[in-house]
């Protein structure tokens, strides 16, 4: 019961926050000293007052700002995100076109980051202060320090261009057409289609951008796992188990790891939230048609319905994940529930 109340409160809070984000972004976008007509009309048409007037009327830009705001909010309450001024298509359909691409990449990257991050963190903690530890720490700091756009160019240059062992930018090779959409995740959709070569091709296209995106989060996860594990390993109950004669590996896997990983969950959650926000640079360099690229193009055109749409999507992401993590904490660690 109290879990239901908890969820209920969360939902209300979510709604208020989304409203706040939409308002904030609306204000910000309107502060941009330029307007969408400039971004979406040709040079010639700009000087033709009739064309400009028709354009403005079409998108409601000729009305006072406050009226535009009210109209937008009214539509928002009916789950209508408006029409993108740049592409002339409903923002909702544009987002549902881009979002699956970002989801696929984000999931792949976070799995990569979590698996390797936790693994490295364990190795580093067990072999504390050894050479292995120093190497792992160097690698995790590298992951956290490398500029993603440069890393992307680097891996493309070596693995795609010079060595030609991995495919280049894009989600699929030229030989394949996009699979019929079920989830929007190409690997899964290709498998559902029964087309294994296409699924493998989609997977291979995920590798390079996935590695680039995973780097930062992996560094964080390694660091957090290591320090939490070290913390837990120095606690009394571990020493007791040790005294009882339990072998080292069993010790770690059974007793220490479970508790140590709880805070790591937060990092993974935050990392996933970040990645689902779409990484503009990686998507642009790898020609990945996701939310990041869409957001970037929208900002360049001062396309406020699209910008707000993206903002809401990402804010929703972030809050949903936060909520899930909080709930998971409550499930896993009973102490949290009492607060």
């Amino acid at each position: 019961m109290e879990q239901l109340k908890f969820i209920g409160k969360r939902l209300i809070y979510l709604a208020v926050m989304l409203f706040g984000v939409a308002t904030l972004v609306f204000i910000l976008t309107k502060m941009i000293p330029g307007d969408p007509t400039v971004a979406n009309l040709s040079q010639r048409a700009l000087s033709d007052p009739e064309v400009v007037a028709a354009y403005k009327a079409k998108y409601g830009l000729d009305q006072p700002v406050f009226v535009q705001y009210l109209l937008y909010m009214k539509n928002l309450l009916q789950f209508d995100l408006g029409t993108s001024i740049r592409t002339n298509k409903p923002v909702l359909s544009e987002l549902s076109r881009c979002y699956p691409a970002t989801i696929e990449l984000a999931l792949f990257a976070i799995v990569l980051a979590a698996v390797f991050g936790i693994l490295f963190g364990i190795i580093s903690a067990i072999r504390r202060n050894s050479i292995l530890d120093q190497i792992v720490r160097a690698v995790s700091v590298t992951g956290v320090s490398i500029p993603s756009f440069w890393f992307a160019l680097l891996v493309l240059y070596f693995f795609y261009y010079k060595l030609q062992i991995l495919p280049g930018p894009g989600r699929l090779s030229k030989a394949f057409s996009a699979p019929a959409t079920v989830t929007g995740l190409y690997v899964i959709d290709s498998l559902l289609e029964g087309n294994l070569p296409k699924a493998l091709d989609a997977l291979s296209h995920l590798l390079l951008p996935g590695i680039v995106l995973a780097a930062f989060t992996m560094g964080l996860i390694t660091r957090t796992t290591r320090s939490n594990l070290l913390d837990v390993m120095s606690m009394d109950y571990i020493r007791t188990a040790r005294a009882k004669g339990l072998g080292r590996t069993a010790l770690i896997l059974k007793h220490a790891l479970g508790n140590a990983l709880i805070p790591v969950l937060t990092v993974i959650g935050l990392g996933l939230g970040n990645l689902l926000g779409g990484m503009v640079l990686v998507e642009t360099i790898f020609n990945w048609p996701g939310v990041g690229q869409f957001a970037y193009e929208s900002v360049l055109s001062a396309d406020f319905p699209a910008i707000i749409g993206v903002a809401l999507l990402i804010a929703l992401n972030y809050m949903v994940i936060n909520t899930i993590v909080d709930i998971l904490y409550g499930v896993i660690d009973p102490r949290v529930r009492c607060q």
Partner: protein
Amino acid sequence: MKKRLLALAMGVVIVLGCTACGGGQDAPSTEQTEGENASNTAGDSGSSTVVIAMGSGFSTLDPGYIYEKYPPLVINACYENLFKFYDNDSAPEPCLADTYEFSEDGMTLTVTLKDGITFASGNPMTSADVLFSINRCKNLQGNPAFIAETIDSMEALDDKTIVFHLTQADSAILSKLTYSSLAILDSAVVKENGGVDTAHASTSDTAQAYLDTTSAGSGMYVMTSYIPDEEVVLEKNPNYWGEATNVDKYIVKIQPDSNTQMMTLSTGDIDVALNMTDDTMAELADAEGVEIINEATKTVGFVMMNMNETYGGPVSNPKVQQAIRKALDYSGMQIICGEGTLTPYAIIQSGFMGSKGERAADYMNLEEAKALLAEAGYADGFDIDMTVTDLDMEGILLTDLAQKIKDDLAQVGINVNIVAQPWAAGYGDAYRDGTLGFTVMYWGTDYNDPNVQLEFLPGGVVGLRAGWTAEMNPELAAMYQETMAATDNDARIAVLEKIQDAMYEDGPFVMVAQAPAHIGYNTRLSGVAISDPYVLDVTLINIQ
């Protein structure tokens, strides 16, 4: 352990739930590709498919709304116009038109259609379709509506004859009729899908969504699939009324990465790469089976100096303007822009009818420039801001041009401070409103006719952006109308040459460089050429 697995499963279910909801709304085109999948995944589906790599996508493929660079490639493949440019540098020739005739005063143009023209749907083409298409473009009041400005009204004398009543004698009307926005639409099909050509079309037409994904024309190809930002598939029109090439299918892939274009071209995965660069071309120097074309387009970069002292400051002074003209290193600019670049003589680009070609290679003269500055009272030079925006001219960054200009002007004591301003965040507005003092910008030709350049005259659209009003030079300003009315080619060329002579060393514009296009293609194709109006005219390409 169990709890963690449960938590993980919850997370996965929620995410999949989101994507399932998201995946529900789809553009109809992806359903169409299900049929295509079989033939596509059989690897390269035979040599009668040509794959083209294109650097950026488009917002719309509806002829009534297009305004970007690449849509004409697709529209030229799927639709046809009354007239067409079969050659980049020559005059427009009849395409759907059979005969045409101007009245004595040039105010009326009568065009008859060829016999036996049918649309891809099977519907025969009549004058009603012509009227519908052109009226729709006009009345939508979209980006390309201006092109039909000089058409006052039209009437259909019979099924095959159209009479255009012009607002004035227009020497460029035939060129305008070649433009993609005046492509002839299958009016029956378009009306079925919400197309409207009446006066309130801008608010009542709903056909754009349809035309963005399906073509409704009479051209050699039909658009069978369009995935935004990914690819467009064009297949041969089975009901084509004319003589088709031997290419059955075009896959136009949107591939912004020039290195990928280069690599896939060299492996044969694509046949035409539209966006080669100096860097990627150097890599292909020894490649077999690959040819590269480097040619100047009619897109031109220019320096603009505001004639109004409030905005232009020192550069509003004609002596300073000439000094800057003398100080720029044109050959250096050409190196920066890449192979094939040239500097036009004046405001009519080389390649246009009536152009006087290129500016003298030895025009730059730093001594003269300094002398002029001294005469103007700036013997010690001056400081000035140059506002530049984040656009690029055929792949050449305007900020790169600005950096070169800054370096050049530093040689004569002018200290330029580059101020970067995004197009949608202030620059576009200032440019349109004529408040920019000193800038470098580019101009893409709206349609393939020298008359587009008349906007650089005092009182013209671009002229006004530089604060150059008609009153400041009435004689020159009058040449706008003179050129428009000169329906006789020789007479028009004469006026154009007068204009170029007048602006060779005078005025607030310095035409710096005509941007080059670099196309790489597989030698199994013939007929590949750079086309200013269509980017690449696929109706001329054959497989050898």
